[in-house]
């Protein structure tokens, strides 16, 4: 049985102009010891889906799921108190903005120790010893002295290391890292990522890595889930995905990688992710898809089988060619 099982997760926000569906029927599963990458452009609902799993969405969010099971617990139906015993202990999250994710009023030691106290009930001296251990484990030099540092005295990379220390404090079974390196300097990004991967290997925990960066995915993940406008459009093992993307969106994402580009210009996908007001009626990617036909505009696409990467598409690609497409050469989208 998988560590985390999500079936048909939908999240809607109550907004001034009605309900907005940010996550639309997403199903995912993560095994213990596995790294699952979730990729997709900004606004595709990656963060919202994982915040829903953690129970961290604001009251304006309406969450529903056919099945939401973590480590044998049906987390959708737990009381708030029961859920708090899991969140932060067995399932932890790391966020995109390390600098603003730490509380400016409290020391590093306090913020790590708090988790230890809440979940493990450690005494003051035990907390101190364990905090030093954790800071050392995430590669912070001079950990004893750092305990009394305030967040504004730390760089972005150091802050993210502290956030990681907090996340691993209770030896979680799953860590969700939401673009953990996006806000950092390029040189620091690789270090933080390596740290996460190393910790994951050592402890055998599951890791969900949300990222924009296909390069990161290729190096780290075992499985990739591609999201677009709130939907999961494809899911494959990482090698297969890079070798043979089945959804045109995945193919476009990969073609946009600088090292794959053949022309003189960096390719990019024309258009933007649809929002609340310009949601296409059937296939959400249709307006930007070079293979779109009338059928894609009229009829919601079916979910393909495992062989076609669970692609949500009428004409899933095989080696770049759309199967069953009336004009397999595809239409060229005007730039």
């Amino acid at each position, binding site marked *: 049985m998988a560590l985390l099982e999500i079936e048909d997760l939908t999240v809607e926000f109550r907004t001034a102009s009605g309900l907005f569906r940010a996550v639309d029927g997403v199903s995912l599963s993560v095994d213990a010891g596995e790294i699952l990458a979730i990729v997709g452009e900004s606004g595709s609902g990656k963060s919202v889906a994982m915040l829903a799993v*953690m129970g*961290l969405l604001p009251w304006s969010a309406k969450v529903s799921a056919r099945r939401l099971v973590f480590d044998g617990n049906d987390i959708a139906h737990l009381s708030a108190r029961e*859920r*708090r*015993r*899991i*969140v*932060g*202990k067995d399932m*932890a*999250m790391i*966020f995109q*903005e390390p*600098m*603003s*994710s*730490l*509380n*400016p*009023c*409290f020391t590093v030691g306090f913020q790590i120790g*708090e*988790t230890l106290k*809440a*979940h493990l009930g450690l005494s003051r001296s035990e907390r101190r010893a364990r905090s030093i251990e954790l800071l050392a484990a995430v590669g912070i030099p001079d950990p004893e002295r750092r305990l009394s540092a*305030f967040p*504004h*005295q*730390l*760089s*972005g990379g150091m802050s993210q290391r502290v*956030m990681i220390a*907090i996340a691993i404090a209770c030896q979680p079974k799953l860590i969700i890292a939401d673009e953990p390196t996006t806000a950092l300097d390029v040189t620091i990004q690789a270090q933080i990522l390596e740290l996460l991967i190393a910790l994951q290997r050592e402890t055998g925990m599951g890791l969900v890595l949300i990222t924009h960066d296909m390069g990161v995915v290729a190096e780290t993940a075992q499985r990739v889930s591609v999201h677009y406008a709130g939907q999961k459009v494809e899911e494959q093992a990482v090698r297969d995905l890079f070798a043979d993307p089945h959804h045109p969106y995945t193919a476009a994402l990969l073609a946009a990688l600088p090292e794959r580009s053949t022309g003189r210009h960096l390719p990019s996908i024309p258009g933007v992710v649809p929002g609340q007001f310009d949601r296409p009626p059937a296939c959400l990617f249709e307006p930007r898809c070079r293979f779109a036909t009338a059928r894609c505009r009229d009829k919601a696409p079916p979910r393909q089988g495992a062989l076609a990467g669970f692609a949500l598409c009428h004409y899933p690609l095989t080696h770049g060619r759309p199967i069953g497409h009336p004009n397999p050469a595809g239409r060229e989208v005007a730039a």
Partner: protein
Amino acid sequence: MPDQAPRPGAPPTTGPLMFSFVVRRILLVIPTFIAIAFLTFVAIRLVPGDPIEVRTGERGISPERLAYFRHELGLDQPVWKQFLDYLWQLAHGDFGTSLSTHAPVLTEFTTLFPATLELALSAMIFAVVLGVPAGVIAATRRGTFVDYSLMGVALTGFSMPIFWWGLLLILFFSVTLGWTPVSGRIDLLYYFEPTTGFMLIDSWLSGEDGAFASAVSHLILPTVVLGTIPLATIARMTRSTMLEVLGEDYVRTARAKGLSPFRVIGIHALRNALIPVVTVIGLQVGMLMAGAVLTEYIFSWPGIGTWLIESIQRRDYPVLQGGILLVSGIVILINILVDLLYGVLNPRIRHAR
């Protein structure tokens, strides 16, 4: 390391830097003092009638006697000369003597000030103890009936004229219900020498039966009257800063740790929300003093406010001038303390280089 810029002008709280901050602030106080002295000096002389005319009243006084007394008090001198003399006197630490009691102004002030301080502290505690939780509850229940009711009450309290509010409370609780006394600090039955000047403490120390209860019952209504506006201000301010803070990333982090809502809101969010609230509380001190004057007058509370109002009626120039200067001095001092406290609460400022 991209440190956030500290609030401009905010003080460091340790070492020689803090010392120089305090010295600078105190030096800045001197021109302020001269300006305040000048304003009160001129204002009281613009009020028709001088101390001698007010004293003699309808009986009148012969022009020769009037001229004699005026000369005695130096009131026959040009006003600018009187003012310079007064400054000279102040520079020697002399606040003058009261024209009506002939006691030194400073002595009268120090005798009466504890009564005012007791009232002001009690009002501030009342305002903070009720205002902060009210603001927190309103913020966490944003947009609900609870929020609207709390903020409605706060708005009403905020716009309540002190005089009218005081009379209303006296009418209801003292006259109609007879629950609380109408005026004073303690029942006339009790007499004991003041040790601290705080009636609550003195009555407790006196060990007399019922003295403490009497002191408490005398303090309740003035506290409510004086504390209402700060209470409303603090509640509204806490609500708005709390709403801001609740949307911050670190609050989400606190929830992601699986902490209880009490810890998330009461510790992680509130600690940050209180930083601006403390500044507001500091700014309230000046208002509080102004309110204390009126409140004391309504309840015949024998403090600085009653003393100042009586000094206006008697045209007791030295008392009014000296009293206002001393009160301003205290307000300024408290503001400096609040600035220091701000640094203590906010680590970003405490550690600013």
